[in-house]
């Protein structure tokens, strides 16, 4: 065995109790860091997945980011016109099929047209404001998870009745509508139709389940009182993380406002950054406290071993060798602590995974946890680095011991 490692190993091995406490300190830090990271990452992933599964990755609407400029502004650069009412435009995406065909030529993933209308659902003395989306059930599976989120019927049930509708399960609970119930839909424009409930869906996002409903495109157009209207294109990509990049290109190509899922929930997602900072700060603090234990044991060993250090130096061991011995001792503690911490972290995660929780806002009754080697590698790395940092100062001090002072003291 290498001389430095041999001496270091002998020192830590001969102090089982002290070494054990130092290792336990690091292990606790690593274990709890892994558990915390797993829980934080798990809840973040769970939330993000639900967002991704519920929403189209990109929504192209018939709006524009900026109102179109007035003709005079286009002609004269110095012209500035105030107080004008923007030009009234016919709602909807122009030539939706041509637009879709153009996008499909390069877009990786699915695209589906839809009609979105704000309406009030009236049933059994309940008036609930709802977003009604007119869709093509055959194309829906290419842009959303809605077919998989159906309860009590398939999405094809929309073809069963003249004006069929599927409601969010929380919405149906709120108004007390069951399958077969005839409900009334009314828009602010005065359109009013009666629709038959043919099924429910459950996305897991409360806002969606409580205030959304789906009908056929044709029904949506009737409700919007505009034949052939398509005011929304919904896009789903194979890689949801590319959404923002693709949305930018879609907007550039079509001129219509194109919003990716992460832009739509930008505020919410930005809270994850703060949450992650808090998490890493707490994890860092835990490991910092653990490193005090390592500092303590290395300081104790160097203090107790002052005579041995002096004799090693008098024999001709270099300062580097002596320093390395104690840094390696800190590393051994950090390494052992990290290994034990990995096991502890895994067991804590497993234990946490068995805890049952009842929360009306969550679908699952288990805590969402993410298992990834990254948490282990990160916690282990921080433990090793903090152990080296904790061991370095006493090691440096030990290496600078003047052997004559110790030898004289001993004699």
């Amino acid at each position, binding site marked *: 065995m290498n001389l430095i490692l041999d001496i270091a190993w002998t020192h830590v091995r001969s102090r089982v109790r002290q070494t054990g406490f130092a290792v336990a300190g690091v292990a606790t830090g690593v274990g709890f860091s892994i558990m915390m990271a797993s829980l934080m990452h798990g809840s973040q992933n769970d939330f993000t997945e639900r967002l991704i599964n519920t929403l189209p990755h990109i929504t192209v609407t018939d709006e524009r980011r900026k109102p179109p400029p007035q003709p005079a502004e286009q002609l004269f650069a110095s012209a500035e016109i105030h107080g004008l009412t923007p030009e009234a435009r016919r709602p909807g995406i122009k030539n939706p099929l041509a637009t879709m065909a153009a996008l499909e030529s390069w877009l990786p993933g699915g695209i589906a047209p839809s009609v979105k209308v704000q309406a009030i659902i009236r049933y059994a003395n309940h008036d609930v404001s709802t977003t009604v989306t007119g869709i093509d059930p055959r194309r829906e599976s290419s842009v959303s998870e809605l077919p998989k989120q159906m309860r009590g019927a398939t999405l094809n049930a929309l073809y069963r009745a003249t004006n069929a509708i599927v409601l969010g399960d929380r919405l149906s609970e709120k108004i007390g509508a069951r399958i077969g119930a005839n409900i009334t839909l009314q828009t602010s424009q005065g359109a009013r139709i009666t629709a038959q409930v043919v099924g429910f869906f459950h996305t897991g996002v409360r806002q969606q389940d409580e205030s959304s409903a789906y009908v056929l495109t044709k029904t949506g157009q009737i409700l919007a009182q505009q034949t052939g209207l398509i005011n929304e294109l919904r896009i789903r990509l194979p890689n949801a993380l590319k959404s923002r990049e693709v949305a930018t290109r879609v907007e550039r190509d079509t001129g219509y406002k194109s919003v990716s899922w992460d832009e739509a929930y930008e505020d919410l997602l930005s809270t994850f950054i703060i949450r992650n900072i808090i998490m890493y700060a707490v994890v860092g603090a835990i490991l910092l406290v653990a490193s005090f234990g390592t500092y303590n044991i290395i300081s104790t060993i160097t203090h107790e071993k002052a005579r041995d250090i002096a004799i090693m130096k008098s024999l*001709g*061991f270099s*300062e580097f060798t002596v320093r390395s011995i104690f840094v390696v001792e800190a590393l051994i503690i950090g390494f052992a602590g990290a290994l034990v911490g990995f096991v502890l972290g895994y067991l804590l995660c497993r234990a946490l995974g068995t805890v049952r929780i009842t929360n009306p806002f969550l679908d699952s009754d288990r805590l969402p946890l993410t298992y990834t080697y990254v948490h282990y590698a990160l916690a282990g790395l921080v433990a090793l680095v903090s152990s080296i940092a904790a061991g370095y100062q006493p090691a440096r001090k030990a290496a600078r011991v003047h052997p004559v002072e110790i*030898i004289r003291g001993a004699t």
Partner: protein
Amino acid sequence: MPLIEARKVTRILPGIVPTTLVQGVDLTVGENEFVAITGPSGSGKSSLLYLLGLLDLPTTGEVLIRGRDTSHMDEEERAFTRLSMLGFVFQFHFLLPEFTILDNVTLPMRALGRYPAGAMKTRASELLDVLGLGDHMNKRPDQLSGGQRQRVAVARALANEPAIILADEPTGSLDSKASEQVFAVLRDIVDKQGKTVVAVTHDLGLAERMDRHVELLDGRIVGDEQHQINAMT
């Protein structure tokens, strides 16, 4: 060329009242010498030995090892010189308590890295055998008597085949029987292995039996005489 040479070496401990440990010492030690350094307590015997062994730096003057001035060496170079050319034996054995006797003797060899792994154990075993400790190789220092421990310290000092052994009161903590054993070992090192031993001692009887006797008083050399010793006695 002398093995060790001290030229006008002075060592002053700094402080509110500076203390002079060694003052203007000139000393030359050659090959195959057995030198005793004696003097009353506080006369600077050990301080001189530490200066000769590069464990301490002179305030003024120079220490030369095989003609090479050590005053310009950095700490690493001095450490390497100690490891490769000098062997130390102290009043207390100073063995590493967690290691076996064999491990203690191989430590300097491992630090120097001159010998292959197998050769280190063989050499350490041979040294311990010669010093009568062949049966104790796997014991720990606390399982040996004082004399045995000191002989292990001698074996460790010899591990890297140094030209000079510097011994600071090597028999100071031993009874008369053990002292004789250790002295006999040092004598053999000089007579049979041709090495040089410089030993600090309080025991004038032992000093008289060495080849040369250097006497210190108040940090200065006040006597330096050669003895005619019959090696067989």
